[in-house]
């Protein structure tokens, strides 16, 4: 064995104990540490040791396995040291109380634009179907049209089709996919989002005009009002987020297009994450209340306005039970 091999052997023998100890420290702990500060210090010492070992191994061993092993150990230790503290509930609270209200204000132009597109499309749908009733074939299925011709709403028999619980899950899943798609299609410079919001507005306007021509618009309104405020709000917000994505790509400002896209994705993703769970609430109302004839108009309106008000208060002002004010952006 030559001198360099002997030196390597000596080094390996001396250092392997430390690497094993560091590996053991990096393994997920079953119970919270009794001496977190002492452990953090040990980790820091181990990290410095691995940095030195890695530098040495790179110089002496090049790309040998020992270097690869030490690179992995370095990366794992680095990640453990620099990862944020795992306060899931605290961070979720911050998301609703601080981030979302701030971002909603920052993105208000895109949100207004989304609302405007939806309202215009809704009016266009109404006018078109009122003037040319045959156009309802573009927005509604033949089965829905047959029901209205027979003087019934297509939503009348929903509770005969499936129990409320399953109906709620199915409706929520569908709404979530529409919401996510409205947001995601914003990557096509906002054009995909415009299409999604526009088509949803056209369909709703067309459906109302068609129902009105048979005197069923009041019943359609009664069906929609309970869940529709939250549902449509979330879809319009998702549209606004999609338009914001599109704007970041069209007008990145002082940043590169990629930087603007990534930063906007992070911001819009936070709002989307906060808004989407409310669709579960809307789904529950749509499954249990909206198709149920036992609920009169007043409870439906109260439910719709109540859930809508709560939704907008949370999205614009944060959680009422949490202390601390956010800084207006």
């Amino acid at each position: 064995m030559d001198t360099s091999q002997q030196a390597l052997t000596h080094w390996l023998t001396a250092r392997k104990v430390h690497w094993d100890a560091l590996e053991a420290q990096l393994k997920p702990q079953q119970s919270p540490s009794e001496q977190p500060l002492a452990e953090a210090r040990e980790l820091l010492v181990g990290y410095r040791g691995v940095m030195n070992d890695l530098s040495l191994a790179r110089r002496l061993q090049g790309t040998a396995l020992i270097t690869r092993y030490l690179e992995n150990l370095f990366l794992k230790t680095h990640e453990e040291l620099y990862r944020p503290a795992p306060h899931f509930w605290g961070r979720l609270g911050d998301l609703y109380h601080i981030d979302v209200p701030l971002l909603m204000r920052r993105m208000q132009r895109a949100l207004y634009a989304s609302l405007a597109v939806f309202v215009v499309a809704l009016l266009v749908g109404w006018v078109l179907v009122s003037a040319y009733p045959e156009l309802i074939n573009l927005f509604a299925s033949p089965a829905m049209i047959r029901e209205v011709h027979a003087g019934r709403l297509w939503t009348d028999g929903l509770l005969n089709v499936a129990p409320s619980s399953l109906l709620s899950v199915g409706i929520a899943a569908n709404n979530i996919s529409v919401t996510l798609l409205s947001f995601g299609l914003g990557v096509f410079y906002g054009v995909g989002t415009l299409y999604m919001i526009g088509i949803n507005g056209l369909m709703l306007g067309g459906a109302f005009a068609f129902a009105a021509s048979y005197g069923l618009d009041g019943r359609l309104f009664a069906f929609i009002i309970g869940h529709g405020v939250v549902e449509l709000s979330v879809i319009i917000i998702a549209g606004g987020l999609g338009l914001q994505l599109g704007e970041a790509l069209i007008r990145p400002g002082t940043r590169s297009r990629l930087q603007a896209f990534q930063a906007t994705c992070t911001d819009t993703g936070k709002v989307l994450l906060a808004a989407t769970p409310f669709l579960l609430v809307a789904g529950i109302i749509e499954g249990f209340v909206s198709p149920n004839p036992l609920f009169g108009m007043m409870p439906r309106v109260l439910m719709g306005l109540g859930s809508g008000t709560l939704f907008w208060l949370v999205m614009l002002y944060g959680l009422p039970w949490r202390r601390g004010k956010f800084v207006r952006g």
Partner: protein
Amino acid sequence: MQQPPKPQAGLFNRLEVQSPDALDYQLDIAGLGARSHAFIIDLHIRFLLALTWVLLVSGGISLLDQLHSLPRYGWMSSRQLIVLLPAFCLYFLYHPVLEVLMAGRTPGKRMAGVRLVNHLGHTPSIGAILLRNVLRMVDALPGIYLVGLLAVAFTRDKVRIGDLAADLVLVYDNRLPAKTLEQMTRLALSSDLSGDDQALLLDLLKRWDGLSVEVRIRFAGQFLARIGQPMPPPDAKPDLAFKKALEKLLPPS
């Protein structure tokens, strides 16, 4: 606040990261092949999981139908929802749930030897994984992942739009099993082989199962010739004889 260092693409598609402690490290970026490999394995797993649920629950419900009279709901639709909804959830939540639980990996990614990391080479956050999976809908357009494939083919870091948005990269998982470190140490302590030859030997044994028989024999023969060792005697299973010859070079544990 100081911005974290951004990745730089070097030659051969590597994610080069400089840590705040001024120590550089590189991670090999997985390309279209490794990404597709992992995706196809995952596709099969989630399809089989969903199918198993559908078959099991359909069978259970048929049995219930025979035991009870029809309930008050339109039973066909309820049954379809009970069978299909969880199957859809299994199918569509597979990636986000497993990527969060398995620190940027899925069973398919693990088998393909790749994992997701952020621009620092760290495990991605839950938010980044969710964002990546929301944009899967766009990458999957028009139903055959064409958008995603084009994005992977033409982006510097071989990423799809979801990864681009969440600032994630798919890299090769270069973890070494604990056994390799043991063998490495024992070799260094008691073998006469040079450092490079020790690394070659361990690397070859580590990759043995993934190589075809012809390649195993060729590589093992070249290695034995390189270190001046005799070839193993002819055997009915020549690759096994070569493996034994290589394993003899490892010091006893």
